[in-house]
């Protein structure tokens, strides 16, 4: 089976092609603000190096968040457009699960800086079960034991995502309708927060 995996929710872009449980291409580097100009070049490079055409793909895995709002949309727009056009299944993943997938500990707490003292946090066990649900929370209120993992400048070790582990865990997940696959921001926009709670 031929899989494409995309994670653009953090400043570190991950693009991978896996064929029959072998990684044929992996890009896993900080692109930061250049994400939107870099991502398609890396996807094109991925297909070239794996000697595949997009039409050969069986399934797409994509992170839907949490993380950078714009970053999430860049990768997810590519993935949902591709899945819709090629009529292939698309499977949503959590960007926190990707970060936690190296599983150095029994419990692995993935963190993404959400600014102003907040983080996006989620804990995953060695089998990538989400044992502490992904959430948006003040870092000083986060009360979960485990190995902390983050790309950001937080008291945590750096991630080294295990792509094969992620794909093995999710390869039989049913695909979702790409029209209805949307970001999982875990946070309202400021305008919506003000409209809902005008006196905060």
């Amino acid at each position: 089976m031929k899989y494409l995996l995309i994670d653009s929710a953090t400043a570190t872009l991950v693009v991978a092609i896996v064929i029959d449980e072998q990684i044929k291409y992996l890009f896993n580097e900080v692109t930061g603000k250049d994400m939107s100009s870099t991502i398609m070049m890396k996807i094109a490079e991925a297909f070239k190096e794996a000697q595949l055409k997009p039409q050969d793909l069986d399934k797409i895995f994509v992170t839907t968040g949490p993380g950078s709002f714009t970053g999430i949309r860049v990768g997810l727009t590519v993935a949902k457009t591709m899945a819709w056009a090629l009529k292939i299944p698309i499977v949503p993943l959590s960007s926190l699960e990707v970060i936690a997938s190296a599983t150095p500990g029994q419990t692995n707490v993935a963190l993404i800086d959400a600014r102003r003292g907040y983080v996006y946090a989620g804990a995953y066990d060695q089998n990538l079960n989400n044992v502490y649900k992904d959430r948006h929370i003040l870092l000083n209120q986060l009360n979960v034991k485990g190995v902390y993992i983050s790309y950001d400048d937080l008291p945590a070790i750096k991630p080294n995502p295990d792509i094969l582990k992620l794909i093995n865990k999710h390869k039989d997940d049913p695909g979702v309708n790409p029209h209805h696959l949307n970001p999982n921001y875990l946070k309202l926009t400021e305008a919506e927060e003000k409209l809902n709670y005008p006196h905060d």
Partner: protein
Amino acid sequence: MKSVYILAIESSCDETSVSIIKDGKEEIATATLSQMDTHANYGGVVPEIASRMHIENITMVLEETLNKANFSIDDIDAIAVTYGPGLVGSLLVGLMAAKTLAFIYDKPLIPVHHIAGHIYANNLVKPLEFPLIALVVSGGHTDLLYMEDDYNFKRLGGTLDDAVGEAYDKVARVINLPYPGGPLVDKLAHEGIDTYPLPLPLDDDSYNFSFSGLKSAVINLTHNEGQRGHQIIPENMATSFQNRVVEILTKKTMRALKEYQVNRLIVAGGVAANKGLRQRLTELCAENNVDLIIPPIEYCTDNAAMIGAAGYYAYKLGRRADLTLNAKASDQLN
């Protein structure tokens, strides 16, 4: 000659729009999803909400357009997309979808400037003739351009601060009209008289415009009258404001026509629907033997059909973007 079919995507502000255009002139199908009702809750377009709505709708709007046209992407010759100017988060959704389709189907990717699209909206009604002067007025743009031939733009000037439509919406708020208030100010302006001493903004030798001072004058005057216990008369304020806007827009546009010895004027963008502006331009163009061209209202507001029309001429000129094409918040058309 074989026809050229362009699939065009526009998402620069609060409309997700996809269109298929034949030879830059004929609209085969368009689907547009407007977010106006959502943004009305906030009194204006909220960029992050706009971006969120674009990604929720982009593939559905693509599918609706192809279904309406009974086309598959194999029938398309090139993908055109608005890369700017506009809201970056919004632009990126249309742009990434366009790049993805161009990549998967190995189709040329045509970068289209949003203002070029507004001008070429007219091409869907009647092919453009050159040379011409174009006045593009909308909620996000105010530009005066000279075109000698197809897809050859010389920008003469534009707003230095607020776009004209933006000033209209802000004035509407001051006189308590709901968002989007521009069309309501226009309507009210026809019921009042010009009694308020508002300045004629940036009345100089350039082709630039400035509406922020005029808007501030409306706010200050309203405030000062309120301090004295007087209520301003909304219809008179609307008339006074609109008269200044129309006067400066038409004054500089007519000067450009004269200086460049052009007798053809195109007015485009959402504010081209403004009755006050249309009336005055119709009079002035008749007096000066200028052919005035204004597209029907559905082509004045943002839509992908106009991007497909402009995209065809960019395509014919060999304009191509590669997969690194990025969104640009501001970019002058030249």
